């Protein structure tokens, strides 16, 4: 009964020159009849053709909520609040971030601010990666790693400028950081827009859809600064109290290093599946209906972050059985 539907928000990240503006202009010119607001950053490239372009200055605020890594985008709270007062309903909002931006404060804004969460929803984080330069950027800037780690979709752009072997290298590098993002190879960001917009990637339902990937437990480690991922499966049901206590402590102590977490859980004495998805210390979890008939009811969790091997994740998870 309250407000109309939540407006989906797509967050567009990627290093300078990767092709964010090209993608933005494609979205705006190809989606005829739809009304989009585009929130651009002050250092953005010029030439975005839309009457609803809003300048933002990427003001990152620390929240005084006892959560040490909890930062939000203050300007987004203000701008989204203003856009929601428009008489005409927007079909979607696209937030472009600067090349060196950490995606976490943007994502966390949707977990922390109640007004933002009531009126809008985070649809997906889309990262445009430059196939030519990504390898070197990953080595030099931790922001590049974070943008890949946070992504729900990675557009591997400029593939026409790289040979087959080079492309495979880039792809495996992306996979090592984030095995769960969808990778789309493009030239001039020419990807089908329905694979970029309207994905609902932050919906808890979508956690269930990555099931097959959860089964590849990958324990590949580079040096400590690298972002990696790790996943666990348990065939035995988990103890809910033990899990909550372990997971709560884990996010409190290591939330800064855990960029994203997701999971499907089978708790002893509970008929329903539980799913969660988190960004740093913030987490959203809820029961998600009964298990499918033929499902083996395995619990699966995945973490993407730094120093994952130093958190006792395996022991902790197994301790919840």
């Amino acid at each position, binding site marked *: *009964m*309250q407000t109309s539907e939540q407006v989906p928000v797509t967050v567009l990240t990627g290093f300078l020159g990767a092709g964010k503006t090209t993608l933005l202009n494609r979205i705006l010119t190809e989606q005829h009849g739809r009304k989009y607001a585009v929130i651009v950053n002050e250092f953005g490239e010029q030439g975005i053709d839309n009457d609803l372009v809003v300048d933002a200055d990427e003001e990152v605020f620390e929240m005084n909520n006892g959560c040490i890594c909890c930062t939000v985008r203050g*300007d987004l*709270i*203000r701008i989204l609040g*203003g856009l929601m*007062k428009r008489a*005409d309903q927007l079909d979607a909002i696209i937030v472009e971030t600067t090349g060196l931006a950490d995606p976490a404060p943007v994502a966390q804004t949707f977990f922390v*601010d109640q007004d933002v969460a009531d009126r809008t929803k985070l649809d997906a984080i889309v990262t445009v990666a430059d196939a030519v330069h990504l390898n070197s950027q990953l080595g030099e800037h931790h922001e590049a790693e974070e943008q890949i780690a946070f992504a729900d979709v990675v557009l591997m752009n400029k593939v026409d400028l790289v040979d087959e072997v080079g492309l495979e290298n880039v792809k495996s590098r992306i996979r090592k950081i984030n095995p769960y993002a969808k990778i789309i190879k493009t030239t001039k960001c020419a990807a089908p827009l329905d694979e970029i917009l309207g994905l609902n990637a932050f919906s808890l339902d979508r956690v269930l859809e990555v099931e097959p990937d959860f089964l590849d437990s990958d324990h590949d480690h580079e040096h400590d600064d690298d972002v990696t991922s790790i996943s666990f499966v348990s065939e035995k049901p988990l103890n809910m109290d033990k899990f909550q206590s372990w997971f709560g402590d884990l996010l409190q102590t290591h939330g800064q290093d855990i960029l994203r977490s997701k999971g499907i859980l089978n708790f002893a004495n509970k008929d329903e599946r539980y799913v969660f998805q988190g960004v740093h210390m913030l987490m959203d979890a809820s029961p998600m209906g009964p298990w499918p008939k033929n499902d083996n009811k395995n619990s699966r969790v995945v973490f993407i972050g730094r120093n994952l091997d130093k958190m006792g994740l395996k022991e902790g998870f197994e301790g919840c059985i």
Partner: protein
Amino acid sequence: MNLGLKDNQGSSKTKLEERGTEYNLKAPVTGAVTINNYIVVSFGDGKVRFFSQDNEPFVVQAHKGVILSIAGIEDSVLTGGEDGRFLKISDNGNINEIANFGTQWIDAVASYKMNYACSSGRKAYLWSDDKETALTLDNPSTVGGLSFDETGNRLAVSSYGGVTVWEKGNRRWKSSRFVWKGSHGKVTFSPDGKYLISAMQENEIHGWRIRDKTDLTMSGYPSKVKSLTWVGDTPHLVTSGANEAICWPFDGKGPLGRKPICVANGGNQNATFVQALPDENAVFVGFYDGSVLLSEIDETKKSYPIRSQTGYEVSVISISSDKKYILIGDIKGNVLCSPLWAGEL
């Protein structure tokens, strides 16, 4: 008080709804001020409407897009919008553009008699003493709110990390910073000018005793405090953000170590807008579902239903300067304009 609110059984409409006029204006109500005997209301489609007791409201298409802030100045209103324009609109509908910031939104406007101010991004602009050009006030981050005190000689500008108070000196305006970690939005001085209060991004409000910058933290709200109003002679600072109006006492030594009074219980939903009934110790409290209650600042008294639910959160409650009528608006454009007192139709 005789608002003729009793004996309301048997009707689904409140007394004020029975004697008032309903409008659906199809754009969110974003703000309201009173000038002369008008209640001037701003909307999300850039329109400003002048409501009066006896005539149909007249409309002025002022901005392209949302009107983000409105303030009154003599026979005119000042508005700031998404279109970057800072306008002065007189009560005969004439529009005068004071400033234009292009693609930068104007987030806040404020006025006191001939002094007025607006903010865009990190800068606030202050026009004072009939000067044509504005003084530019730089801030460490985007301005969250603007407010003059009741002398017009001090302007509070809130932002991330605190509030800056600009005070008129003999030759120029001087600034003083009130620091508190976090992001500060709406800001107000107490009527006696001794306290400065800001609504924060966190679910709390923060205050300072201006004399010595003593901090006052008023917390425990289940949601963000979006609306503040000063009520009665005590006075009480009445706030939204909880399922009842939270009223902090500012007499004597202020609210330090004292409990607030809680009135006008909205059940399991939170208050979104509060507005004092002028010259009375009573407050109108609007809720998330569009309903409005009136209550004295007294926990032993019961509250009166003023408006039934509309399904959409109350974004504006305004009382005309002559206290003869009230206007209530919500985020869907539903407006009720009604005589306040019984027997004066």
